[in-house]
């Protein structure tokens, strides 16, 4: 027993040493993000960063369901897109106040996540992937042809109201929304709930044998994932002030996977990083945009082959090397 207590003490100490480092990176990021409008007051740059913030929320929300819980979702755009459309349509056609439209948008994503989640609870592996893909495909078909009278198709729904006019205010609003969303998702992922979700991903039978109500937790993961994607979609609608069929495309669904693979699946922070980097990269090389699906697929394949843990695994690798180095030095 004494050995055990000593062991626990060491763990505690180790974590104590980690704390300052742990907060350093996020603090530096927030500091830089806060002063960017002053040091680089380019409307275009800020616009790209606002989009990046939106996609960070979107990617992190995908990660809680697929990265943490292991439920492969190939149609994540459906939550983002439905919310964006509901905001745009209610706000422009029904003339509901924007704040109410946003609530309805997020609520619609929540309801859709229940509707998709419930049948998916009994499905595993490829069946689940096909089902999520099909749901998003149906939504795409509705928006692009069957219900074009409502969605406006390629033309989209125009004239959505915005909370605040101007790029700089929207930049700060998106920054705050992104930080809060990522923080909440990260806290959930690092909590007891996150550990339970991980167990379900590793082995569903073993999780059940541990007494976990896997059905309940999988549904919870669907709800969180869909709702946060809905928040991202609602913000997108009020910022862009136009919602086109782009928000429910296969391309957008694939981007969630590409963002997450680049950053590191199952880490929340990784997908957030991936979304940031890829969004900026694509906007910087605008001529690449037409090849986006192709590039996403190349990224997915090459990361799966060469760096399945994403950028976050590089950090772990460095840390391990540091520790090993320290160990040798100490001896």
């Amino acid at each position, binding site marked *: *027993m004494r*050995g*055990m207590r000593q*062991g*626990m003490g060491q*763990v505690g100490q180790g974590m104590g040493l980690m704390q300052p480092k742990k907060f350093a990176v996020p603090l530096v990021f927030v500091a830089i993000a806060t002063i960017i409008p002053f040091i680089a007051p380019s409307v275009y740059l800020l616009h790209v960063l606002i989009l990046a913030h939106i996609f960070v929320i979107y990617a992190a929300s995908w990660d809680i369901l697929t990265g943490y819980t292991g439920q492969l979702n190939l149609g994540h755009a459906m939550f983002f897109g439905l919310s964006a459309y509901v905001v745009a349509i209610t706000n422009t056609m029904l003339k509901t106040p924007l704040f109410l439209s946003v609530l309805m948008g997020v609520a619609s994503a929540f309801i859709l996540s229940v509707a998709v989640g419930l049948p998916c609870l009994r499905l595993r592996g490829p069946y689940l992937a096909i089902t999520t893909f099909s749901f998003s495909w149906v939504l795409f078909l509705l928006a692009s042809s069957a219900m074009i009278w409502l969605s406006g198709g390629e033309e989209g729904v125009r004239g959505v109201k915005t909370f605040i006019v101007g790029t700089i205010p929207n930049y700060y609003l998106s920054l705050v929304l992104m930080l809060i969303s990522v923080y909440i998702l990260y806290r959930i992922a690092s909590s*007891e709930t996150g*550990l*339970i979700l*991980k*167990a379900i991903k*590793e*082995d569903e*039978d*073993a*999780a*059940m*044998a*541990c*007494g*976990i*109500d*896997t059905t309940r937790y999988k549904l919870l993961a669907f709800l969180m994932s869909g709702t946060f994607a809905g928040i991202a979609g609602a913000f997108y609608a009020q910022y862009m002030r136009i919602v086109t069929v782009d928000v429910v495309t296969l391309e957008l669904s694939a981007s969630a996977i590409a963002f997450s693979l680049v950053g590191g699946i199952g880490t929340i922070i990784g997908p957030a990083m991936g979304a940031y980097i890829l969004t900026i990269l694509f906007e910087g090389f605008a001529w690449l945009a037409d090849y986006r699906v192709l590039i996403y697929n190349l990224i997915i394949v090459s990361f799966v082959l060469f760096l399945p843990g994403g950028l976050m695994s590089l950090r772990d690798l460095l840390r391990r090397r540091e520790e090993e180095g320290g160990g040798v030095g100490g001896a």
Partner: protein
Amino acid sequence: MSRSGEFLEVINLSKHFKGLRAVDDVTFSVGNGEFLGIIGPNGAGKTTLFNLITGFLKPTSGEIHFVGRDITGMKPHERVKLGIARTFQVTKPFKKLTVMENVIIAALIARKQGKIKEDEKNFAAEVLEKVGLLHRKDMAAENLPHGEVKKLEIARALATKPELLLLDEPFSGLTGEEVASLQEVIKSIHEDGITVILIEHVLKACMALSERIIVLNYGKIIADGTPEEVCMDKQVIEAYLGRRGLEFASG
């Protein structure tokens, strides 16, 4: 029909897969604190029986009662809550998680259900100490040697704070030394008052631990008695060695 006296009761339980009767009209009961061994040739229906008792499979017909309650329709996690825990024949560790985290997950649920009052980390450490894995607590489960994965399975089941523990071939693939050490662990678990049902191919260990043994063949119980009685049973010898073996055994 008062059944409240019995701890676990399996009543006319059957499970058919298409034409195959994996478990065929099986009836037996287990008393509180008993150590029951279940043996039988490959394909005798032992693991299917475990899956039925723990809720991983639904029976074709029959009932299962636990401490006087009909649990036949309950889901696996509900049975865990009542105090039924299991290990898997093909081990199922949470590979990417540490040994400690593997056990903490089960302990966490036990704490939420009010079965343990203490912090789940302390409880998990106690359980790891019990099975002799505490020195591995920070290792990823996927890096454990096979013998210790078997112990981890048991630790995880123990962390659910069970009253009834079902062990599915815990000795398979272990070296002689590992068998001896695990045998001690299982013995001490039983001595703590936990009822144990053990499926085993390593007959020596099973015979040494069990107070009573049930022999399954083609989904049916062909013998039920003390290890000595079962060993002498003609049907059992025939099931294991065939008719010739029986002739040979009886000289």
